[in-house]
């Protein structure tokens, strides 16, 4: 009985955490370099989730990781490994221009109250099972539809923003305003956020410089998108940055009561 009560309490807490904007752990895709040159080049891509950026902590599975070449064709992820702390694969760049590496995720989380107790839906529930999983006497039903997109960009030669950057129109996405790699400290960068393909106006965007382990202050920069969904970033210095945002939207799944979309990108900034 005590155990169930703790579980129920935990459930309530995690649901609360879910609905909040703060993310304790940051998902990331970390290229060994975002700029390369020559006829072809190799970069190593790490995929993980961690509190300390960009230190390996927990691996993210490579199952949903996709790579788009500058011409918009898909490059298969081959020879990947999932270690104890991060997943990793080597990417062979053979086309001139900017590659996009994407990890998407999504699902449904939620719970309800039955006889005064909080109950959670199974973790791996699919949308079609929602209706049958909620008992008739359930109250306070909260079903959260979630989607996440984690990206990074690698350029061979000069940057391009071609076919690889065509928005999917689903969830929260980043659209290039100019290029998506090749950033330097003395040039402010602009990014446009899209929610379901439309400018995501007035959403909170967080910028965190990598290397958090080597400083006391978190150095987080909080920004808000303008009416066009655009943020302008003045880089505090060179290095790898984690750029994250989340937005709420109208649910698309039958039965969902809320919807949350999140986005994160790793961006490298060099000295000019």
């Amino acid at each position, binding site marked *: 009985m005590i155990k169930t009560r703790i579980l129920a309490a935990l459930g309530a807490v995690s649901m609360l955490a879910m609905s909040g904007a703060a993310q304790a752990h940051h998902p990331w895709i970390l290229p060994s370099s975002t700029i390369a040159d*020559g006829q072809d080049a190799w970069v190593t891509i790490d995929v993980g989730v961690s509190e300390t950026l960009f230190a390996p902590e927990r691996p993210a599975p490579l199952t949903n990781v996709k790579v788009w070449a500058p011409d918009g064709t898909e490059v298969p992820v081959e020879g990947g490994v999932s270690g104890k702390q991060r997943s990793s694969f080597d990417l062979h760049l053979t086309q001139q221009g900017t590659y996009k590496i994407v990890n998407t995720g999504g699902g449904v989380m939620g719970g309800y109250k039955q006889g005064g107790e909080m109950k959670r839906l199974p973790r791996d529930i699919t949308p079609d099972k929602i209706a049958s999983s909620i008992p008739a006497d359930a109250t306070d039903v909260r079903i959260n539809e979630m989607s996440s997109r984690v990206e990074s960009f690698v350029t061979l*030669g*000069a940057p391009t923003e071609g076919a690889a950057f065509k928005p999917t129109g689903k969830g929260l996405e980043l659209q290039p305003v100019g290029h998506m790699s090749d950033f330097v400290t003395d040039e402010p960068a602009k990014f446009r956020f899209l929610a379901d393909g439309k400018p995501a106006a007035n959403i909170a965007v967080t910028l965190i410089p990598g290397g958090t382990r080597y400083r006391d202050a978190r150095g987080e920069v909080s920004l808000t998108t303008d009416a066009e969904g655009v943020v302008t970033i003045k880089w505090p210095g060179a290095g790898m940055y984690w750029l994250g945002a989340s937005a709420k939207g109208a649910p698309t799944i039958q039965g969902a009561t809320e919807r949350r979309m999140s986005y994160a990108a790793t961006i490298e900034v060099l000295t000019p």
Partner: protein
Amino acid sequence: MRLSYSLALTGIAVAAPATVTTAATIDLTVTIPQLKVAEYHKPYVAIFVEQPGGTVAPKTLAVWYDLGKRNNAGTKWVNEMRTWWRKGGRTMKLPADGISGATHAPGPAKVTLNTGDLPVGKYDLVVEASREGGGREVVRLPINLAGGTAKAAGTNELGAVTAVVKK
């Protein structure tokens, strides 16, 4: 040797018809500092002009790198001159006639550069040096293609840089 010869030739060829309008020459002296380091390699140097905030695209005037390597292998490291590489180097093919040159030993290196079809105006002449096992440095000289002298100096990888612009 052959390359510096072609540099001179290009200078004449372009200067002749262009004198009416724009072409200027720049007598440039770049001092490569003597460094007391365990392992010394002569620096790679890129020289280009750009117009900060202007409309004229950056133009490469010279790139000094290891020309002697087989299969053009010396170009592998030219991207270490990051500023230049980003502003035009990466879209260039090397060796380039009148632009490629050998690296220079410590001491003053004197070259004459031709600005070709650049419109008369104010520019930054940028000299960027990068050394294997060493650092990188960028020195900027504000110049006017109408004529004049500009001086600047680096602190680590470059010494005094002097440009005399002649129209």
